[in-house]
């Protein structure tokens, strides 16, 4: 199954009832799949007139307590950023999918990871965070969509799947596990019709009194602390004895893993740390992974964005080097191996 289609099927199985989208390469198969399947699954598919309309439809649907989702690729996500900030400010759960392509501007349509900062630091104005999941295979896309819907409901905050064009377009075997959808009680806030039987609920992100706004942000950040404590996830690969620790996520981590295996074959003790959650960043997991490492090498399809979080997580206690490709160019195992050798001092 194609990555984009797997994302869509998983969302439907996770109880997504509303999908609003607008076509953009390389994620269009997702919306096409939704158009075909969603009405049969008893949900709503709607192709909006723009990305901005689509994200505001998600805001509206999420306000009623149903599971809602939108998807796009980099330039489209920028357009959605205002709405995402409103969703976060209104404490609403929603899932947003970004199948990244090269940027900035219209950029290109080939795979990229240049939206890391956007996803983890600045998806819109104001003090807020999204849960950010980074799948590295089609199977993980399925699993993470299910988790994203669950945690979005649990913490009442938007969650993002940060994929890229390579994962979206590739086909791999995938299995759909039996999904037990947790039903969270939304009756205290969902605006789903009061029928004159209760006070009406107000979904709002406007607080004109600074004290009240500050309190709402404080409350949200208390939840973020719980999220940071409980929701980190990472893969540690051959890290127990590594001299060099490579850090990579998503599609890049697949290439890095091949390079790590090649390095081991020629006697270089390389390992890999792969965060599966980018927010919250797996700080503890990284510190464990780099215990024996002398140096770290961060590999990304960008000019170097996750490297900031890597340095922060280890408090710059070890040297962190960077290798990146950008604009839609995918790094090869051979060139990453070259970097490993260079850093490891092997000729």
């Amino acid at each position, binding site marked *: 199954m194609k990555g984009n289609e797997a994302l869509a099927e998983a969302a439907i199985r996770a109880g997504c009832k509303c999908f609003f989208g607008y076509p953009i390469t390389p994620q269009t198969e997702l919306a096409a799949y939704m158009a075909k399947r969603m009405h049969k699954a008893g949900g709503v598919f709607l192709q909006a007139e723009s990305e901005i309309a689509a994200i505001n439809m998600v805001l509206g649907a999420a306000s009623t307590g149903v599971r809602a989702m939108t998807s796009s690729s980099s330039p489209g996500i920028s357009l959605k950023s205002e709405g995402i900030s409103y969703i976060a400010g209104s404490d609403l759960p929603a899932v947003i999918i970004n199948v990244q392509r090269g940027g900035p501007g219209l950029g290109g349509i080939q795979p990229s990871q240049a939206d890391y900062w956007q996803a983890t630091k600045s998806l819109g104005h104001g003090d807020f965070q999204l849960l950010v999941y980074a799948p590295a295979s089609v199977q993980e896309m399925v699993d993470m969509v299910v988790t994203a819907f669950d945690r979005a409901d649990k913490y009442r905050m938007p969650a993002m799947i940060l994929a890229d064009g390579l994962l979206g*377009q*590739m*086909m*791999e*075997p995938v299995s759909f596990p039996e999904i037990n959808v947790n039903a969270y009680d939304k009756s205290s806030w969902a605006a789903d019709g009061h029928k004159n039987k209760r006070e009406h609920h107000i979904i709002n992100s406007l607080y004109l009194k600074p004290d009240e706004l500050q309190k709402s942000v404080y409350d949200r950040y208390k939840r973020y602390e719980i999220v940071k404590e409980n929701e980190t996830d990472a893969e540690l690969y051959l890290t127990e004895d590594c001299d060099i620790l490579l850090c990579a996520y998503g599609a890049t981590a697949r*290439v890095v893993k091949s390079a790590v295996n090649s390095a081991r074959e020629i006697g270089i003790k390389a390992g890999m740390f792969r965060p599966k959650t980018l927010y919250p960043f797996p700080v503890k997991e990284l510190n464990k992974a780099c215990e024996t490492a002398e140096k770290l090498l961060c590999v990304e399809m960008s000019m170097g964005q996750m490297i900031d979080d890597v340095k922060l997580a280890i408090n710059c206690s070890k040297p962190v080097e960077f290798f990146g490709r950008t604009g839609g160019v995918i790094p090869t195992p051979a060139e990453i191996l070259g970097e490993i050798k260079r850093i490891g001092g092997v000729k």
Partner: protein
Amino acid sequence: MASTDILLAGFGGQGVLFAGKILAYCGLMDNRELSWLPSYGPEMRGGTANCSVCISDEPIGSPLVLTPDILIAMNQPSFDKFISDVKTGGKVFYDSTLIEAEYDRTDIEVFGIPSSQLADDNQLKGGSNIILLGKLIKETGLFGLETVQKAIEKVVPPSKAKLIPNNLKAIEIGMNN
């Protein structure tokens, strides 16, 4: 063979992605690890199209094939562009109706069959891709015939099920040429 990287290339509309899909499903039928990655972009009928298929016993790292073990070339530009990338000991299959094969490599095996002509002669319009697959199956032994049959039945959508026998016939022609 623990791991096989295959690159299929040609014009859009020749069925390069479809042929790749059959190979990927063969991997699935044999319970092996696999990946299928199309080139995507402003491609259309008549433009260039290619796809990477990896079949392996280990989890697959990069799904992008840069140095194939097996190349299927369905037009001249693809043959000229990728012939130098094939790994030593690799195999190349090309449509000799459309391609004049000029190359200076002696470390690879190159098989040309007039797959377009054979498709026309046998009333298998658009079956050139599958004929080349048949040749590949015969020369590499990557998959058994039964596996290929199962894969074809899986890949051809139910609405086009009447085309399954044609595809099987094309495989047979490829294997006998």
